[in-house]
């Protein structure tokens, strides 16, 4: 029973807890290490106040990373999320200037996010274009649209009863409103991905799209849904960001897509598709937030945040690669031993 030699490179659906735990356990260990390290750098690190601050800094990245994880599991990608964030902020600002109420503006922004996602979906599923190329294009296009909508100006007179949703904690707790939003989305997507048939189909598409299509999975429809979800959530992130900063600008979110992809990759989601969990992404986000907070509070220069994050990412990509090679080398050796043993047949 040479189970290992025949195992496919991508285990589509983690059946056993032990397999699931490998990557996530590693990230968890790194989180603990960071918490220890951070508390050594500053005695203000392990406080509820700091948790509130640090988690807010990564809230928008977290929101966008969760749907992106699902997209990457289907072996696609969406790099336009940060530009949708900017477009959403621009629309929010422009409609506010025009006198609309926030209750009316928010659904419009979300709808525009959904439309942006739908356009991405159309290009990828109907026109058959590679999502990398499409979303690099829409990344630029949506940012341009944002600048057309709002121009260079900033809109700043949002009322306190709305901006508090951006940076205040839920009364009585140290949990900021945006984090509650992230938690809701994480739980929702975790249930979707790991406990529904749709989730299994998403993994199947990533593992082998052709086979998935032939087994009756509606690949195009699922991918379209995921892109629309990504766009909508990115627009939501734009609203949260604008409320947190109490201002709206067209250039908000520039460069965020890199942090979002970093969180997804660090979370153990394979770029090739078919592998990854929401838990991994959540842990990766916690790790990235903790590192940023530890270094900032510890008065370490901001360049080190970039260096450490980059190093982690490289390790995240190299790691599985190395493990795979070691496994193959071992299997090869085992096969060689099997074949070279004297055969009693014939």
């Amino acid at each position, binding site marked *: 029973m040479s189970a290992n030699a025949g195992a496919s490179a991508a285990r589509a659906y983690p059946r056993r*807890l032990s397999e699931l735990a490998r990557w996530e356990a590693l990230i968890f260990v790194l989180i603990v290490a960071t*918490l220890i390290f951070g508390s050594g750098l500053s005695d*203000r690190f392990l406080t*509820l106040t700091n948790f509130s601050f640090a988690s807010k800094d990564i809230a928008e990245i977290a929101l966008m990373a969760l749907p992106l994880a699902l997209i990457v599991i289907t072996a696609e990608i969406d790099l336009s999320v940060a530009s949708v964030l900017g477009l959403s902020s621009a629309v929010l600002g422009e409609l506010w200037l025009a006198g609309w109420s926030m209750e009316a503006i928010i659904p419009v922004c979300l709808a525009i996010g959904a439309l942006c996602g739908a356009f991405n979906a159309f290009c990828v599923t109907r026109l058959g274009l590679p999502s990398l190329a499409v979303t690099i294009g829409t990344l630029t296009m949506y940012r341009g649209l944002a600048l057309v909508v709002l121009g260079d100006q900033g809109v700043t007179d949002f009322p306190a009863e709305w901006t508090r949703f951006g940076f205040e904690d839920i009364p009585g707790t140290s949990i900021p409103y945006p984090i509650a939003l992230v938690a809701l989305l994480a739980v929702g997507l975790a249930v979707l991905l790991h*406990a529904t048939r749709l989730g299994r189909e998403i993994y199947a598409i990533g593992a082998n799209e052709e086979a998935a299509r032939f087994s009756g999975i509606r690949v195009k429809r699922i991918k379209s849904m995921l892109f629309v979800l990504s766009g909508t959530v990115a627009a939501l992130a734009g609203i949260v960001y604008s409320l947190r900063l109490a201002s709206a*600008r067209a250039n908000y979110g520039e460069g965020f897509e890199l942090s979002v992809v970093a969180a997804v990759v660090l979370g153990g989601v394979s770029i090739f598709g078919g592998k990854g969990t929401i838990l991994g992404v959540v842990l990766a986000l916690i790790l990235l937030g903790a590192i940023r907070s530890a270094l900032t509070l510890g008065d370490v220069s901001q360049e080190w945040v970039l260096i450490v994050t980059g190093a982690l990412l490289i390790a995240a990509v190299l790691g599985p690669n190395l493990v795979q090679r070691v496994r193959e080398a071992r299997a090869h050796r085992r096969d060689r031993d099997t074949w070279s043993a004297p055969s009693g047949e014939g």
Partner: protein
Amino acid sequence: MTSNSQRRPVLRLLLIPVLVLGLALAVAACGGDDDGNGSESAAENGEGGVPEGLEIVSIPKQLGNPYEEVEHGGVEEATTELGGEHSYEGPTDAGASSQVPLINAAGQQGVDALIIAANDPNAVCPALQQAEQSGVAIVAMDSDAAPECRSIFINQASTEGIGQAQIEMICDQVPDCEGEIAILSATANATNQNAWIEVMEQELEKEEYSGLELVEIAYGDDDDQKSFQETQGLLQAYPDLQGIIAPTTVGIAAAARFICGSPNEGEVVVTGLGTPNQMRQFVDSGCVEEFALWNPADVGYLAAHAAANLTAENITGEEGETFEAGRLGEYEIGADGEVILGPPTRFNQENIGDFDF
């Protein structure tokens, strides 16, 4: 697979983030609650002096900007003179929210004063207000934050004076004060550049500048490469361009580098705000005739003294109050908490050799 064995991994999946969060919060609760009262500064001295051991944090728009490094060197100079401790923390990019974690950290650490050159006047406001509630004195310099989020703003020269000087210079240098001009600014959200540009646009409506036409405002984002490319773009889009005003030291250096030594040298005037050291070669070669600035170190120096006096509660930022600023003498606070350093200095071939920054 039956639904049972699929549900178990899911429960475990949901359990682990709950565990992680619970662990973090438990550790945090044990670690103690920061009730926001971090400032232990010795503000007991009511005699007009400034207490020793002040902790001052200064935050530039972005790391790696030579002008800002000189400016914050002035903060260091003043803080050392006052017997305090200076900490320089900057973001790696000039985005609107990049300074927020640094402001939060300063508030959490309970420093005495925070001096900031804001990337975006409003985006940093909630964070600054929260820091102020923790007992940190907030001083803005160079690039202002919204007035309700800071006590004092150190303006290097009056906003009008800076805008007017640049229009005067371009008019002096462009033949007959007639032709198309463009502005090469920093980022689109920068408070200071935007304020100066507004003044420049108003100036251009005056009778004596009627020959000049502002055709475009380009944004180089205070990035050398982008500014270089934007200059190229301007010259391609407007072949008859007579002059470029760059109210940012990174922009003017990049524009001068593009134009001097190219066929456009002598045809297109480059002026604006620059540091003598960066612009020396262009002035010596005759390519750039005149530009302006002030001593950025003095800006930082004045800001630190203002911050120290705020902490010592000698001043509160009200109009008419005065305070001592070391070697710069006495300063009075103007409207809206603004303190003006002095008039801008113009640099040209005659005097550029006298300066080293």
